[in-house]
């Protein structure tokens, strides 16, 4: 077979390959995007029981006033409702851990009790503080049901700091950052309750 014919074969193959990939990519793009959205929302929302709400919380973002808190910053919030009634507020909180930013998703019910806490992003030491990134997480589970007033402000600390919570073994700074961020979020919820629940002025 001569040279030009074989070059033509390769060029033809390249054209067919590129166009096939392009067509497939174009036709699948919307479906892939919707799958991605579904996956993302499932990943975020397993912080609270699915039976609790019937809306799409991620499509109801909240605008948060004064998001800079004592130990952390709130980077976003969502409202979960059930037949129009707000049942929970999700707050995204960023604080400084031991090795970098620690981002938590904190779910608080309408009475100000914690529904769940999930780590969205962490750069803590693998094997020590990195444990906070695992899900489900027994240590973060210990906070469920707590609220701003129960325990008291002094109780919202590690046992090492005369509080009432255990720490992650070998990761005092990470544990402290997480507790402070959760406490901050609960305090923020208490102070802005009406606005967050959408019942106030």
């Amino acid at each position, binding site marked *: *077979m001569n040279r030009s014919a*074989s070059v033509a*074969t*390769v060029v033809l*193959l390249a054209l067919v390959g590129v166009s*096939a990939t392009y067509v*497939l990519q174009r036709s*699948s793009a919307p479906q*892939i995007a919707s799958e991605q959205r579904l*996956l993302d929302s499932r990943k975020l929302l397993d912080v609270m029981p699915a039976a609790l709400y019937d809306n799409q919380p991620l499509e109801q973002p909240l605008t948060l006033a004064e998001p800079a808190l004592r130990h952390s910053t709130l980077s976003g919030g969502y409202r979960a409702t059930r037949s129009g009634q707000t049942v929970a507020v999700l707050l995204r909180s960023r604080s400084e851990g031991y090795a970098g930013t620690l981002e938590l998703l904190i779910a608080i019910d309408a009475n100000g009790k914690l529904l769940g806490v999930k780590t969205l992003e962490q750069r803590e030491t693998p094997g020590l503080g990195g444990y906070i990134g695992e899900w489900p997480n027994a240590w973060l589970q210990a906070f469920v049901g707590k609220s701003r007033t129960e325990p008291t402000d002094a109780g919202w600390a590690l046992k090492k700091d005369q509080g009432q919570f255990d720490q992650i073994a070998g990761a005092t700074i990470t544990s402290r950052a997480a507790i402070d961020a959760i406490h901050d979020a609960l305090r923020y919820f208490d102070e802005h309750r009406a606005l967050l629940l959408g019942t106030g002025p």
Partner: protein
Amino acid sequence: MKRTVNLLMLVPLLGATPTFSAALGITLMLSAVLGVFAVCMSPLRERLTGTRALLASLILAATLTSCADIVAQRWFLPWQQTSELYIGLIALHCVVLEYHGAFRDPVAVSFKRCAMFGALMLVVGGLREIIGYGSLGRGLSEHWPGLVLFPEGLRLITLVPGAFVLLGLLLAARQAWTRRNSVIKETHRP
């Protein structure tokens, strides 16, 4: 030649088999892409030689792998996200196998080799899931949570170094087995 191919096949064997379902996915994808690649390459191999044949195999491998990746994204997104790296590597497998002439072997021989490798992948995946997570078949179907054997597993096995250790143990077991079966009589020296 054998060495390069074997080393390259070690990558999906260790990296992409944390659970049985992941191993099944990558095995199916590898066999589908390699099969289509072999079929498409056979007419091209006769027409092209040297660099142009290599170029054609490169284009073909890239096309097939991209299409397989898009299909996986469309229907199996959670699995695709964990195995993305190894899906991309399938193109390299195609080109290296083609370069070393693995597809020129008789069909029966290639088929047997692929089946053996696939079985090994599934065994490693299954064992890693049982030891590492204490379950089997998690994530295979949305309605079936998988067979839970014990609540917590050995975390090391879920990581790639753990897979390497497991493969070593499997090889040792195989060697012990073949040695026992082959009759070796010790000769006593005076």
